[in-house]
């Protein structure tokens, strides 16, 4: 394992660390199911557009006439240790919620693209998004009951994914399976981090 000089000593052990993981994929593919299988689901109210409230600096100029629309979403929380907590954000599948992706993706560990082999095209936008932004991701195929099973390689070809990109089968309802998905993602991120940096 290569230890690069750019690793800055690691985090102090007492520091509270919160890490984001994104879960993307088409509507109804099982994102919420997977989050619920492996983490504590917490409700969150947010508003459109999220970025407007997060990017700005001016105290008095922020008064707006327009009413914002409140949107309900969930996130998952996995407390690995008291000072190390994972947050799973299911990026909303509908296009009208895409405004939220940039903020959710900022600083994220990586992403899981959840796919249904019956509707593979639904995850194209998510894959494009993460590829364009160099956000490490894996693909998890949610094996719905009765769905025709394809091999990982069939899917790799269909989605035009690099050979090194992990594609795993999962059952989004199963805690163990959901855990394996997350483990595969973190292992992939570690592998990517060990590769020579060319950016």
């Amino acid at each position: 394992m290569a230890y690069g000089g750019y690793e800055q000593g690691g985090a102090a052990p007492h520091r509270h660390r919160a890490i984001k993981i994104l879960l993307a994929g088409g509507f109804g593919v099982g994102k919420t199911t997977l989050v619920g299988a492996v983490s504590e689901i917490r409700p969150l109210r947010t508003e459109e557009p999220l970025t407007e409230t997060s990017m700005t600096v001016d105290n008095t100029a922020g008064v707006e006439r327009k009413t914002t629309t409140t949107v309900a979403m969930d996130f998952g929380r996995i407390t690995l240790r008291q000072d190390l907590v994972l947050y799973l954000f299911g990026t909303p599948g509908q296009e009208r919620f895409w405004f939220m992706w940039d903020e959710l993706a900022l600083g994220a560990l990586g992403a899981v693209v959840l796919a249904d082999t019956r509707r593979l095209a639904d995850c194209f936008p998510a894959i494009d998004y993460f590829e364009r932004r160099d956000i490490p991701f894996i693909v998890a195929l949610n094996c719905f009951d009765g769905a025709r099973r394809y091999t990982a390689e069939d899917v790799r070809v269909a989605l035009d994914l690099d050979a090194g990109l992990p594609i795993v089968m999962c059952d989004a309802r199963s805690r163990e399976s959901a855990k394996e998905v997350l483990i595969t993602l973190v292992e992939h991120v570690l592998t990517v981090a060990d590769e020579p940096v060319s950016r």
Partner: protein
Amino acid sequence: MPSNDERWLDAEAGPVVRPYALTRGRTRHAGEAFDLVATVTATRARVADPNALAPEHISVLQLAHAPTTVVDIASDVDLPLGVVRILLADLRELGLVAIRAPVSTKAQQIDRNTLREVLHGLRGL
């Protein structure tokens, strides 16, 4: 800071308060932007002027006595994230909370030690 003299809620208002009434119409917060998983910790500084705080400020402050995150606070107080951010920024201005950036603020800057700890933690679930 604008005047806090006006009551933001009275008996006539009924049970529903438009979320941004709590922020006196502000939709943007003061100071440096912070991530939705930024860590918030109460500084335990004395509240110089309790009248400067709305009940929601107090609720948010109480949740931050142990380090927590912006989204966890928003979930606990059941207010929209944008409103909670403004309340947090107010508290920060008053020196009542510290808001620290999460482990990384750009993709792929989580250090390997932390990644290994995450992996270890997940395997142990």
